[in-house]
């Protein structure tokens, strides 16, 4: 039989046949590995998770016209430069001055689904409009004209073209139903919102839009690179970032990540102390065995090798258990805190196992080293 085979046979026998003792050590290592791998998973997933949360604050990129003409086709060209998975919503806006009861009002034509996605903080009393000839009105407008949900109101538009040959300019008008009243706390309350198609019908002109708001789930750096790419490749679009949103996202994210990192480091330190204490106890109760091994001819080196082999095997097992439990732990945290599932990071498995082996190995090195000082004569006489 090869020495290595006997070595493996001994260390596995020690783990398998001293199960109750080893289970305690294994438990402490596995818990450490679980918390470690769980926290690291969360640490890396926080930007993604928080990015999704931050999209509640609204658009973080704006498209405007680079020159005179700016259509929804240009917006789509711009969008094609962005990974489709990162896009939370796109809302094009066209603003026109219309009249309600002969007083001017700003009407915004947009895509309601896009507006809902880019401005999740909008609070609508009633329903978002979904059919033609329906509109949302800002709270100020509702108050000014004493309009409420379900009312119908005529919206008038006077075409800009000069009336030729003394012809009377004909006003366009559409009868709209108010489906909801918009409450945002901002200037949006002074506008009325309708679909782009309705606004085009009302004005009799189509195609051009004024601005597009985009909500993109990406880090500040990725957003900047998207912006540069769009400005370079899509001539008609002038893309820029909403600094107020992107900058605060970056600040909050870095603080949150620093917090998770700090917790991870503290937990790792506590785990090391816990594992070291356990390994010290495990080695201490085997002083007699060490004495015996020395008495029958074991060198210090082979005793250190055997004990380190055992603790590294423990570390390996603990690391494997910890990787699995850590993912479950991170998943639970993610579901409870961020209400979304977490992505599995395969690289974290070998890293957790290696760290677990290293921590267990290192923390047993000291007690094992001191255990080699055991006097082999200890095993003679009835001690």
């Amino acid at each position, binding site marked *: *039989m*090869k*020495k290595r*085979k*006997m*070595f493996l*046979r*001994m260390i596995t*026998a*020690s783990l398998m*046949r*001293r199960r109750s003792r080893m289970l305690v050590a294994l438990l402490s290592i596995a818990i450490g590995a679980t918390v470690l791998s769980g926290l690291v998973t969360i640490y890396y997933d926080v930007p993604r998770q928080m990015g999704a949360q931050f999209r509640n604050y609204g658009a973080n990129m704006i498209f405007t016209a680079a020159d005179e003409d700016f259509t929804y086709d240009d917006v789509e060209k711009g969008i094609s430069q962005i990974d489709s998975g990162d896009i939370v919503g796109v809302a094009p806006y066209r603003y026109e001055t219309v009249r309600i009861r002969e007083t001017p009002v700003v009407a915004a034509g947009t895509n309601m689904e896009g507006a809902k996605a880019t401005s999740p903080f909008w609070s609508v009393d009633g329903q978002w409009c979904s059919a033609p000839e329906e509109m949302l009105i800002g709270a100020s407008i509702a108050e000014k004209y004493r309009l409420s949900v379900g009312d119908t109101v005529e919206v008038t538009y006077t075409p800009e073209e000069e009336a030729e040959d003394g012809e009377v300019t004909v006003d366009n008008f559409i009868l709209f139903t108010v489906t909801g009243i918009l409450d945002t706390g901002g200037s949006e309350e002074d506008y009325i919102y309708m679909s782009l198609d309705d606004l085009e019908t009302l004005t009799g002109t189509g195609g051009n839009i004024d601005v597009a708001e985009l909500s993109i789930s990406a880090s500040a750096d990725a957003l900047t690179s998207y912006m540069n790419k769009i400005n370079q490749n899509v001539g008609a679009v002038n893309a820029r970032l909403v600094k107020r949103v992107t900058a605060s996202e970056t600040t909050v994210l870095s603080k949150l990540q620093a917090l998770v990192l700090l917790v991870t480091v503290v937990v790792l330190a506590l785990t090391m102390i816990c594992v070291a204490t356990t390994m010290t106890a495990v080695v201490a109760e085997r002083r*007699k*065995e060490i004495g*015996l*091994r*020395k*008495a*029958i*001819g*074991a*060198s*210090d080196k*082979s005793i250190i090798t055997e004990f380190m082999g055992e603790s590294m095997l423990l570390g390996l097992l603990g690391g494997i258990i910890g990787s699995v439990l850590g993912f479950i732990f991170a998943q639970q945290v993610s579901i409870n805190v961020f209400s979304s599932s977490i992505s599995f990071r395969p690289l974290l498995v070998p890293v957790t196992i290696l760290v677990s082996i290293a921590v267990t190995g290192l923390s047993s090195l000291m007690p094992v080293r001191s255990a080699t000082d055991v*006097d*082999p*004569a200890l*095993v*003679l*006489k*009835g001690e």
Partner: protein
Amino acid sequence: MSLLELRNIYKIYGELHALDNVSLKVEKGEWVSIMGPSGSGKSTMMNIIGCMDKPTKGEVLLDGVDISKESAKNLTNVRRDKIGLIFQQFHLVNYLTALENVMLAQYYHSMPDEKEALEALDRVGLADRAKHLPSQLSGGEQQRVCVARALINYPEIILADEPTGNLDEANEAIVVDLFHKLHNEGTTLIVVTHDPEVAEVAQRTLVLRSGKLAKEVINENFTGQIKFDHE
């Protein structure tokens, strides 16, 4: 040349002379008992012969080589290569089977050899208990595993420390019987014991008192035959 020779050995702890100018010779193939009351220096002598301790003064010659000044590391090598130890408390590794415990000695000495280890267990009559853990063996069986482990590497000397101290009469007889077998095969045996019955089956009994060699008894009746009849 004697296999083992102690020349004017002293072991001094402060004021206490645990061994006080002790000299003795053990020839190859000899069976020697060491007796003495508690505190007589038996353990100290045992530790020095077993290469687990060094004398304060004096020379220890094993195979003509003075080992009294060797480093702890070299003493470990001497112990591994030349000495087989048998303990009062058996001291088997509790999570290894009988067979693995014997192989452990091979592992530290050279190469583990399962077949040879099984043969050694067979010699002590435990071939059928090879896969048992120490906790599944009786005291006598554990001591026989300990004997098998001590003899597996063909040591120059088998050093037994109260080998029958924890055994009942029947098992004591089996172990003494084994010593006879070993002796007949030419093994050198040094047995430290309290028990006069165990001591007097040896060829020679040395009696220690207060660190000095007080008496040496040659066993006239030594026949090399098995004295106990445990059948």
